[in-house]
């Protein structure tokens, strides 16, 4: 049997006093306290407390609970014959459980309300978020989400014959005589123009009408691999005024 240190005995002393240790440990501690005055003193204090508690709570004389049995039995009989409303009232006598239930229900509702309002007012997914980048990368090349670059294998989108919305808008909106506008656009597989933005240092505000007209335009989509594909491209829009020389 290993000998225990005083620290080990002190840690186990309450369990030893309460006889909650295994037999081997009980014997080891009993042996230790017989030869160690400080630990023996600690044990004496524990025993003194136990004796004091038992002494403070002296056994009550049997007269103290005289009538308990008859009282219980008569109340039992009364309960068996009590009305439904009286039983219901008794169920709510101890209101602390009711308050706890109401409080937890209210807390659940408040949490639910907060979560719903957060969902309601949360901003939509940002374009530069990691989720959005992953979604774009996982989309097939040439889809609306992941448009292809215009190269030699893809035929460029073209205007629909008879659709003169762009020309008409440009003719009516541009205040300058000469202008070349570089526009970054995406043409979807359906031929719609998306994400129109002006490149360079030009102020978008000056060309808002043009950009809006471009956004509403419908083109014949780019073709690649035997079908329509979405493409992103730079669109150069030139506005030129040709002035004729008036001969006298």
């Amino acid at each position, binding site marked *: 049997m*290993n000998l225990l240190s005083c620290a080990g005995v002190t840690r*186990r002393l309450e369990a030893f006093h309460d006889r909650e240790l295994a037999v081997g440990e009980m014997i080891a501690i009993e042996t230790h306290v017989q030869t160690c005055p400080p630990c023996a003193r600690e044990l004496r*204090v524990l025993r003194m407390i136990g004796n*004091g508690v038992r002494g403070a709570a*002296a056994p009550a004389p049997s007269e103290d609970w005289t009538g*308990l049995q008859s009282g219980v039995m008569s*109340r039992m009989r009364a309960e068996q014959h009590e009305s439904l409303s009286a039983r219901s009232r008794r169920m709510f006598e*101890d209101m602390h459980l009711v308050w706890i239930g109401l409080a937890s229900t209210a807390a659940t509702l408040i949490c639910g309300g907060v979560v719903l309002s957060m969902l309601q007012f949360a901003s939509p997914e940002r374009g530069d978020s990691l989720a959005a980048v992953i979604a774009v990368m996982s989309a097939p090349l040439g889809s609306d989400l992941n448009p292809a670059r215009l190269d030699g294998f893809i035929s460029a989108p073209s205007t629909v014959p008879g659709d003169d919305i762009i020309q008409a808008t440009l003719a009516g909106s541009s205040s300058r005589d000469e202008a070349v506008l570089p526009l970054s656009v995406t043409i979807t597989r359906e031929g719609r123009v998306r994400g129109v933005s002006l490149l360079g240092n030009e102020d978008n505000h000056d060309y808002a009408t043009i950009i809006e007209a471009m956004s509403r335009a419908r083109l014949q989509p780019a073709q690649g691999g035997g079908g329509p594909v979405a493409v992103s491209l730079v669109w150069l829009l030139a506005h030129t005024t040709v002035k004729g020389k008036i001969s006298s």
Partner: protein
Amino acid sequence: MPEGLSVKPVRAITWSEVGDREALLIQRCAAHDEDACADLVNEHQRMVYQLSFNLLGDHNEALDLSQEVFLRVFRTIHTFRGQSALRTWMFRIVVNQARNRQRWWRRRHRAQQVSLDEHIRDHGDPPEHHNGSSPDRVLGQKLLAGQISAALDQLPFDQKTALVLREIDGLSYEEIGFSLGVAVGTVKSRLARARESLRAQLRQI
């Protein structure tokens, strides 16, 4: 021997160990047999009253609580599945009812709480225990019991209950844990804190 604290293993009690007589008594009480209910009260009234009195410290309160406990026992005895001894299960009911009553009492009579000195003046000293010892020893024990009684009243309810169940009713940690609805580790810490508080009181003697 390992340095880590080990605790004597305790087995859960099964129906077969509850005892045929007690099992039969429980079944009869669940079937609202009045004679069986009377027998059960007769058998456990001392234990229920004594614990109630130790927890509440008032005869009338303890008597009233004991009645409530037995009524609660008969209302819910059909749910007793032998997960503990009947006695331990009843301890649990006593503790819960006493806790509720004390909570209720504190809410309504907070302003009427009295100091320890007033309590001893009004209720007198604790009862004496003559066991053939010398007068000095009896006087010392009386003083100690008085101090500890006053210190016990100052302890938080859960610590006081754990100490009473351990030192007076002799319940094991496992049984105290069941009665209080807490883990064995919590029982140990509550006992340690309660004893430390009492030890502090004893140092002043």
